[in-house]
């Protein structure tokens, strides 16, 4: 799990028109994924055009189950390589969601040593302050 060092700001997501809906949903503790309805294709990260059909008006936002499996992960163990806002050690996981796209995030109440590829996880949300909400992943029963 990740803990933060007080007083050091966490770098915020850069929000623009292309990913606004994604972060608006996160603020409401929901995960939505970009989806091209012409191709029935999920896209992540959010983008302004479907790479399969090159349409820009077929993109919609669909709720995600938020469930998936750990696809890969890294453990940050020394301060040489880590951003100082995060207490060491901490893990960043790459989660493959049921919809097929992959998200990066931190973990909740999972010790870095216990993480394994294929671990079933689901999303949870955390309000960092008044105007920033992030998500992380917790264990679920496979």
């Amino acid at each position, binding site marked *: 799990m990740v803990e933060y060092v007080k007083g050091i700001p966490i770098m915020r997501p*850069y929000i*623009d*028109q*292309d990913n606004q809906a994604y972060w608006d949903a996160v603020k409401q503790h929901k995960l939505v994924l970009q989806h091209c309805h012409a191709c029935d294709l999920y896209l992540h990260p959010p*983008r*302004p*055009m*479907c*790479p399969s059909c*090159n349409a820009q008006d077929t993109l919609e936002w669909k709720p995600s189950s938020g469930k998936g499996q750990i696809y890969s992960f890294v453990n940050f163990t020394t301060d040489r390589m880590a951003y100082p806002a995060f207490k060491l050690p901490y893990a960043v996981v790459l989660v493959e969601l049921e919809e097929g796209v992959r998200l990066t995030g931190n973990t909740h109440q999972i010790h870095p040593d216990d993480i394994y590829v294929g671990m079933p996880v689901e999303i949870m949300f955390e309000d960092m302050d008044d105007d920033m909400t992030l998500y992380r992943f917790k264990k679920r029963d496979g």
Partner: protein
Amino acid sequence: MELYKEKTAIVGIGVVPFSTDIGRTEWYTACQAVKLAVDDAGLDMKRVDGLVKNVDDGPDQMYVQKGLGMDNLTYTAESHWGTSPMMNAITAVASGSVNYAVYYQTAHRASGPEKSISDFRVAREMREDLLDLIRADFYTPFGLIGQPGYVGMTIRRYMHEFNVTPEQMGWVPVVCSENAARNTEAVFFDKSITIQDYINSKVVVDPIRELDCAPKVDGSIAIIVTTLENAKSLRHPPAIIMAATQGTSSEGQFFTSYMRDTITELPEMQFVADELYRVAGIGAKDVKVAQLDDSFAPLVPMQLEALGFCDRGEGAAFCEGGDRIRNGGQLPLNTAGGALGQGRFDSARIVEAVRQVRGTSANQVKDADMVLSVSGAGGPADGLILRRQ
């Protein structure tokens, strides 16, 4: 023999309508412009294998690829100034490395940085202020700040050496406004201005007036280059590249090459002219329409001189009255309205050159079989000559 000469052509153009607030991200409009150009050419997106861009403009190739879905680019490149990435596209195609090279220029200069993907725009402006160190050391402490001031220093000297009147300088803006008023795609000038409007225009940095300076605009353009052979199976007759080049000169400094023996000529543009005419095997008199860099209108007379359309010191007199540079005149200029009418956006000149060759300009010039387009009146320059098949 230049590998590209008469072997390459522009076969597709994509223009997202210009706006002072385009309302989308640069990432969005970059994807949009490439798609429009690919459709204009009648090409399959998967066959595009080269993407080139200006260093400071718009999202990089990996970003646009996320929208365009091209699998395999064999060539990407960035060049710095004006429309110089065209040379990357043309030489890559001519060398056989690439079949279809797309040059995309995307920059939302009129709306705020929050409108663009990440911080491209901020980076662009920081770069201009901080990394031009000669400027930071020797110009800004004295308040010589901003391009109108930089250009003004050159123009004052030009007007002094050749006895040019402010009135003579006004004809390029007047004719551009006339062309823009007839071009529904041009954002500025619903109606044309008069020479009196120009004289009355506010002096921003004496001797530069407000109507000398092309306004900022949000835009996104894509241009496709391929071989003449490939062009045969595409939708439009090709705009054949007779010649293309970049041009630089020693002691160059962006808009402020003040240390040369004379500062009232444009040696970079002179090099461009010499090379274009040499390769194309034509002379200035053969050019039917010219798209010159009117980011700052008073630099147009100096370009006319460098490009051989008139003698040195006679550029302003050449434009006087406007008849020589209007459609029907000796050398119609900036027929889409130029940067003054469309906003400052270098690749728009190449688009207009292609339209003249295709016969689809809003101010179509009769028999426009050879068309010139140049960029970079303020420093490193580039240009090309297109012809009809």
